[in-house]
């Protein structure tokens, strides 16, 4: 059963009525509801299209955070074979907000790393809602360096509200851990491609997404701060998140215009959660494509191109 977002309430009513009609039809043989239900379905489909044709930035944030949106684990399970999770930062702990390990993509060995938010109460708590602690970034550093050493491409899947703002995380050097992860992204001499599949939350995201190629799902967001956080600082009112989401230019379209990302991966009508398999397949295709563009480049070229990409970034603003 689809969980509806608040702006989808009218849709929930129509789809609910159609569902109710069909249930009545099943119970009552004399009643033919086919035509009426089909009309409602058509109405719902039309409304869904209208809603999703032009999602406001704030609505995109809600879609990007949808609890049923495919998460890192879903992508790894569907797209890769022989996934072999590797755990721990060899220092303090294993952070379950970050998953990663060896795997094969179309038989080619790769290193895959991503934030995992969890999909029910238990797993969400275990995954800390995708908010990594220093150990998560340090595990990523370890895996990226291993990939660099053995010549394996690195694929990162970004989906985090941000790095965890906790006492222990600060105590153990959250800042340093994020800085080192970004640094490692820039140092490894292997192809590094990244996909923002949900939320690209600030430093916690950039630590994984300083890549040769960065793609974003159509309704994912990538931002320096959450709209709520921005609203409470600049508007002194966290309820102004709609305005903040607008001003921050956090949608895939705007980020493409700014030259921050390279490509946008289209989502099925109604968002990734209404067509998981289709979305995952599209992401898989985009990853293979991006890796293909980097094939045959040596370590120095990969590193130099990655650096140049970021050094040149932002020079033209929205006119890019």
């Amino acid at each position, binding site marked *: 059963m689809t969980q509806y977002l608040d702006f989808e309430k009218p849709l929930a009513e129509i789809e609910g009525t159609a569902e109710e009609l069909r249930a009545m039809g099943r119970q009552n043989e004399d009643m033919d509801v086919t035509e009426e239900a089909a009309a409602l379905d058509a109405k719902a489909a039309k409304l869904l299209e209208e809603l999703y044709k032009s999602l406001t930035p704030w609505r995109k944030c809600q879609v990007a955070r949808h609890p049923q949106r495919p998460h890192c684990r879903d992508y790894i399970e569907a797209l890769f074979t022989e996934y072999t999770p590797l755990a721990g930062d060899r220092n303090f702990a294993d952070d379950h907000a970050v998953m990663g390990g060896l795997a094969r993509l179309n038989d080619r060995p790769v290193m895959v790393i991503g934030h995992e938010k969890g999909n029910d109460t238990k797993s969400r708590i275990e995954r800390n809602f995708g908010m990594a602690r220093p150990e998560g970034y340090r595990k990523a550093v370890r895996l990226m360096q291993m990939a660099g050493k053995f010549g394996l491409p690195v694929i990162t899947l970004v989906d985090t509200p941000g790095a965890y703002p906790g006492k222990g995380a600060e105590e153990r050097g959250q800042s340093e851990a994020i800085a080192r992860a970004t640094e490692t992204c820039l140092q490894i001499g292997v192809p590094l491609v990244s996909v923002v599949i949900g939320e690209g939350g600030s430093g916690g995201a950039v630590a994984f997404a300083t890549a040769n190629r960065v793609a974003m799902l159509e309704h994912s967001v990538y931002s320096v701060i959450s709209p709520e956080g921005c609203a409470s600082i600049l508007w002194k009112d966290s309820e102004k998140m709609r305005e903040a989401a607008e001003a921050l*230019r956090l949608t895939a379209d705007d980020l493409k215009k700014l030259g921050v990302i390279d490509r946008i991966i289209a989502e099925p009508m109604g968002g990734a959660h209404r067509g998981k398999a289709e979305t995952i397949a599209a992401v898989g295709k985009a990853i293979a494509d991006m890796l293909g563009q980097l094939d045959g480049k040596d370590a120095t070229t990969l590193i130099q191109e990655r650096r140049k990409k970021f050094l040149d970034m*932002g020079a033209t603003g929205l006119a890019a």
Partner: protein
Amino acid sequence: MNWITNYVRPRINSIFSRRETPENLWQKCDECGTMLFHRELSDNLNVCSSCGHHMAITPRERFRALFDGAVFNEINVPEPKADPLNFRDQKRYPDRMKAAQKSTGEKEAMLVATGEIGRTPVVAIAQDFSFMGGSMGMYVGNAIIAAAQEAVKLQRPLILFSAAGGARMQEGILSLMQMPRTTVAVQMLKEAGLPYIVVLTHPTTGGVTASYAMLGDVHIAEPNALICFAGPRVIEQTIREKLPEGFQRAEYLLDHGMLDRVTPRGQMRDELIGIVRMLLNLPPAIKGDLPAPDDTATETPAEDAPKE
């Protein structure tokens, strides 16, 4: 018509207004409340002589105290595209910029300079917390890249003084992209084998801490500076408990292995000279105030450098 009121008086006024006449000759220490005479306070590098509290200091004042003979040459920073997102919150971003420029007399939140400290040529860069909270946008990123390139070109160490509330939200994702951009700058220094010393001053938080401020060869902080990724208020809201006294302060970070040293501002210059010279395998320096080096006299001195 009285020529004195119409001609002479405006001139006299303009001479007066150009002089540094602080509104308040006395400033109250915001830690211990002692009234401090402004001259004494600036001679003491804005450190309270009564309790040792370190108040904010502008990059220009810091550089005057840092460089031999107070002489330094400002390095030009490539101008980024202004207001790249056409950002507007309650105010327009260009208006916020203008207000910051007016109140600080500076163009942006970073000052880059070359000069000598203890006869040791260095590049220094300092962040200005009084300019929109020192926030990191395209200009700050460009300044760090320019400083690193200058250091590599001249084969000099880079000393960076950080002070920022975090990212410049008005530049959205482009402010976030300064994390990788400035990390590339740090890599340039490392590859050239040049020392990169970070002096973390109050406050250094957010994306700034999680990039160039935590990637130095040596990390030194000023006493009691707040240094963190997530601010104390955000953490208290998340974990719903009060944080202990001194949490995320310089001494706490020293205890937790994130800093090499905590050093009072008054001793910072000598310490920097010592560290830089040892890392460069140079003989010990002559300590104390030095006159401006002769060889920089041929270079164009910075506008604000005192001409004697």
